């Protein structure tokens, strides 16, 4: 009896070991698939375009060539766009937080008259909308077409983020605390600003991260709602240079045609790196908030 149990345990151990081996192998493959394209672009941005264009699989830096970055850093329009994106992201995130966080708190209060109806007003926008033409006409009618507000306001509130925020306050602030404060004559404003906000840095970080990522990566709204070249954000310029093949206009006019051609290819990689780098460098540090935000939304959504 004891013996059979032992052998079955050994068998079990072996089955689990094989299984874990497969799991680890799969995880390694997944990580390679995710990282390699990013790593490749990074390598290609500092490698001689001749080597890159041979289609060779790059694994480590070889035949370094930094002309691409030199030209990229000297290319003014890219930095104008960079400035625009930073401006839109900072203003946009601030506006979004001012709109979303207080509303999330108000909707979390069970004693808010008309609460269910108000929540519905927001959730409905997740599943039905006017579509791009009516939104475009709205922007025009408001007179904010081709201004920073056309980039900021349409995305200032996302119903999903609002619900995440509400769920956070619902589970994060005990009802007794609220009642006790009320008995002591604490107003809703004071409670929100002096008690709710200070204990809610997590949700504010989550919201800031969600909104900032969305604002930084905005492309289509810029295409629809902006007109002037000097107002375009990074994503639009990136698309023009890389996908519409305009990167050959970047070098100085004195460069020989061959150098220009050579450069044009490398420039694509440099621009991609420059525009993706900020978020990729920041996110590992704030990602725990990110995961938290998604989780809050899922549990209570």
């Amino acid at each position: 009896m004891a013996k059979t149990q032992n052998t079955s345990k050994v068998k079990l151990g072996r089955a689990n070991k094989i299984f874990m081996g497969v799991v680890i192998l799969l995880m390694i493959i997944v990580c390679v698939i995710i990282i390699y394209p990013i790593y490749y672009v990074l390598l290609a941005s500092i490698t001689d375009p001749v080597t890159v264009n041979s289609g060779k699989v790059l694994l480590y830096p070889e035949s370094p060539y930094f002309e691409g970055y030199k030209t990229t850093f000297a290319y003014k329009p890219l930095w104008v766009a960079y400035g625009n994106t930073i401006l839109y992201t900072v203003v946009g995130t601030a506006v979004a937080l001012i709109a979303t966080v207080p509303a999330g708190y108000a909707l979390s209060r069970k004693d808010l008259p008309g609460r269910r109806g108000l929540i519905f007003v927001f959730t409905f926008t997740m599943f039905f909308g006017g579509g791009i033409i009516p939104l475009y006409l709205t922007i025009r009618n408001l007179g904010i077409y081709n201004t920073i507000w056309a980039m900021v306001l349409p995305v200032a509130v996302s119903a999903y983020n609002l619900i995440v925020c509400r769920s956070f306050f619902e589970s994060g602030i005990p009802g007794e605390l609220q009642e006790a404060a009320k008995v002591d004559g604490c107003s809703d404003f004071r409670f929100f600003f002096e008690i709710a906000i200070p204990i809610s840095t997590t949700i504010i970080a989550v919201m800031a991260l969600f909104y900032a990522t969305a604002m930084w990566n905005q492309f289509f709204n810029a295409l629809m709602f902006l007109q002037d070249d000097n107002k375009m954000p990074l994503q639009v310029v990136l698309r023009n240079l890389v996908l519409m093949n305009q990167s050959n206009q970047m070098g100085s006019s004195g460069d020989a045609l061959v150098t220009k051609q050579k450069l044009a290819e490398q420039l694509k990689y440099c621009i991609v790196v420059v525009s993706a780098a900020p978020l990729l460098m920041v996110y590992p540090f704030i990602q725990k908030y990110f995961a938290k935000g998604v989780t809050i939304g899922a549990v209570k959504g």
Partner: protein
Amino acid sequence: MGRRGEKSPAAKKAGRSRNLKKVLSAWQLYVLLLPSLVWAIVFAYYPMYGLIISFKDYKIRQGIMGSPWANPIFKYFQQFFSTSIAVTAIKNTILISLESIVIAFWIPIVFALLLNQIRNLRTRKVIQTISYAPYFMSNVVVVSIISVFFSATGVMNHMIGASNPILFTSLPQWFRTLYIGSNIWQTMGFNAVIYIAALTSISPDYYEAATIDGATKWQQIKYIDIPMIMPTVILMLILQIGNIMNVGYEKAFLMQNGSNTIVSELISTYVYKVGLQTAQYSFATAVGLFNSVVNFIILIIANQIAKKVSDISIF
């Protein structure tokens, strides 16, 4: 307030004033809500009202109300269905969505289940962090990477060692593969977060009991993990089905080029083109409205079915 008819007018009045008092005493909460509410009215509901122009001959000068009704009222809808592009765009939209659900939906689930097996917390964190790196990259960046990676002289052609390079980015038959494949790459890690959270909330007692009974890891996944995350899976499935007509047009638009429009033209990209590039506002709005309504109906049906079958629903 159930049986209204039986109440005396005075009682009704008292009830109403009590309600009013409640609303008034909560005024500070309404103030906190105000910015978002204004946003909803201006940027969500006013555009919904603007949908009326799909039934009108909209002229910018005359405004939404002033523009004359279209004659017949469904003129622009009829116009859409009489174009050859209608069938193509509807077909492309539905195909890309269905293929995404069939191919891509379960991948984050499997990823979450396998990642959950890794007991070393640090390793797990590292893998998870890596997994959602692409989520922070914009569509423009991702499409840029696709365009260099899959170009005629790119790495992919080199790796498969084709003697004649395959033109992945312009051949129609590769469009959906690239679109869905890169979507998986972008969102797998992010979409898995929800499942990972559901998995970590499972009580360790289950696994202990299962181990004592001699269950292998594989059996534990099958009989504990999967049933436990099923509600989350169904919820996510409803949400995805409810977005079946709302394919991310931004990426499709970026991946579009002259030679692949027969598969890459979606309803949404078509709306953008006829609406904003050629200024046919009423027509484009009609096409967009058709899309939203069909989508909404599908959402309701999916939600209803899920409610019946599993008691899980979003509303």
